[in-house]
């Protein structure tokens, strides 16, 4: 009799522990999905910024007419693909990357830097390109972590992710144009003045 009771108690405890494990894993999956959503939103905003500045650069007459036309076209494709499916979007964004690389060689960048409004525009473009690169890395990192957890046997068997679709990584060419790396582009949104504490160092 008491043996049967012990068995029942053991089973209940085991079930409780298992339930707790399931709930914690479901929580982790949920949190990873939210991380994916946030990084995707950040990536979207930087992509949008990049195409906006590209359009601005294309219409500024700072580049030669042929380059301007190509860039305007690529930036427009990228902007209008926002509502398309992921594959079409990444293709349009990769095409914008390729066009930026083609029209912003170091020589072209030198030319643009010589104009009064050029430096600021290139600074904004360089900042946007870099942020696209970073947020894409972080998005794919979150996707990988989420897939890994979701593909664990128990998580998959108990459908801990609910009906959330299988997370997709964001595959695109996000190379920063050569000219924006090798040339000394001024910076934006930062003050060049250093506080007195800089040279003294924080600890000496």
């Amino acid at each position, binding site marked *: 009799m008491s043996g049967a009771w012990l068995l029942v108690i053991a089973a209940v405890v085991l079930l409780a522990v298992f339930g707790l494990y399931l709930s914690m894993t479901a929580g982790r999956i949920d949190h990873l999905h939210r991380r994916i959503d946030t990084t995707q939103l950040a990536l979207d905003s930087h992509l949008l910024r990049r195409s906006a500045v590209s359009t601005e650069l294309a219409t500024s007459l700072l580049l030669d007419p042929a380059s301007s036309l190509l860039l305007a076209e690529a930036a427009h494709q990228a902007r209008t693909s926002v509502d398309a499916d992921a594959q079409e979007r990444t293709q349009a964004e990769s095409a914008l990357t390729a066009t930026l690389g083609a029209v912003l060689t170091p020589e072209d960048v030198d030319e643009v830097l010589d104009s009064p409004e050029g430096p600021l525009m290139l600074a904004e473009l360089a900042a946007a390109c*870099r942020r696209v690169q970073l947020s894409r890395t972080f998005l794919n990192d979150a996707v990988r*972590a989420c897939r890994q957890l979701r593909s664990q046997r128990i998580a998959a068997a108990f459908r801990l992710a609910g009906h959330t679709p299988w997370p997709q990584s964001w595959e695109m060419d996000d190379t920063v144009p050569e000219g924006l790396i090798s040339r000394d582009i001024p910076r934006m949104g930062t003050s060049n003045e250093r506080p007195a504490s800089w040279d003294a160092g924080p600890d000496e």
Partner: protein
Amino acid sequence: MRVGLVCPYAWDVPGGVRSHVADLAVALQAHGHDVSVLAPVEDAETLPPWVVDGGRPIAVRYNGSIARLSIGVSATRKVRGWIRSGDFDVLHVHEPVAPSLSLLALWAARGPIVATWHSSHDRSRILSAGYAVAQTAMEKVRGRIAVSEEARRTLVTHVGGDAVLIPNGVRVSAFASRERLPGVDPARPALLFLGRVDEPRKGLAVLLASLPTIVEAVPDVQVLIAGPGSADDSLAELPEEVRARITVLGRISDEDKVRALRSVDVYVAPHTGGESFGIVLVEALAAQAAVVASDLPAFRRVLDDGACGMLFPNQDEQGLADQVVLALGDAGLRARMVAAGDARVRIFDWDRVVDDVIAVYDSVRLPEEKVTEDLRGQIVGRLSRSGRGGGG
């Protein structure tokens, strides 16, 4: 932006991570950001106003040495209080796997979180039972930074995923000394080698092999060799007239390193590999030395493809000798390289490196988003919160 930085190791003890955090905090403030640093503190008297006392550190054996960490209930409480009152836009923890304030902060916070991995850890530690516990906290990190290729490799191979590489900045102003090293004859042309003399990748052998040619062309040259290790064997193989021109300084202090760079005409970097950033060259340019270096990719990059220093084919002693003789014979060329280097070095300054860190903050964060306290896993916190009707 309001940035909360967490340093896991004691603020009072000098160390790589600690000075990285201090330099980063100062650079972020120079860019107009609000910074609060949470660190274990031994002596709260001497703290800068932007450092918050995270509790007294205790000495624990960790990662192969004695580390001074803060752990326990009181540290946890301090971390939670700091996060609640901090109102941070970004939380940036350093060395997230260190069992100290960093891990506690990851545990206690949610929102835009960035982590920087500094040292490489071995596989056994990362896959240990302790790491499984930390996994949930680690999953909250939205953006991961590695300061070196080694740190990044550890992360990618053992933990999985990816990280962006942002190397340490160099405090350029710290290398702007005007003093010379006593014992260097200012009237004679001088060469300098820096680095472990018995580490083949530092390339002393290439320099030594080139010396006979250099001495033949510039008979009054003096050669300074500074760095730990013993080079007696390789020196003994040199002809007497070459050996007579060499001064071995042994291990020297950082101050003397700057003085030595100041005192010579040419700094030679014959490294044959293993340099992923070429920080040595950045320091040499910051100290305004004329540089002759092997054409490793990192060196090529630092020297802007030869615009602010001379390059020779890696491991080619004849090429090294030719470039050194050319540089020693032409003061105008050296002055031009130093001037170009002076401008170049600014992009490696903390002042610039911090731009990349800010770009990372921007890439993980939505406008208006804040770091908040994470009450999951905190039964007491949850109860107290629900008791107050979900308010906070």
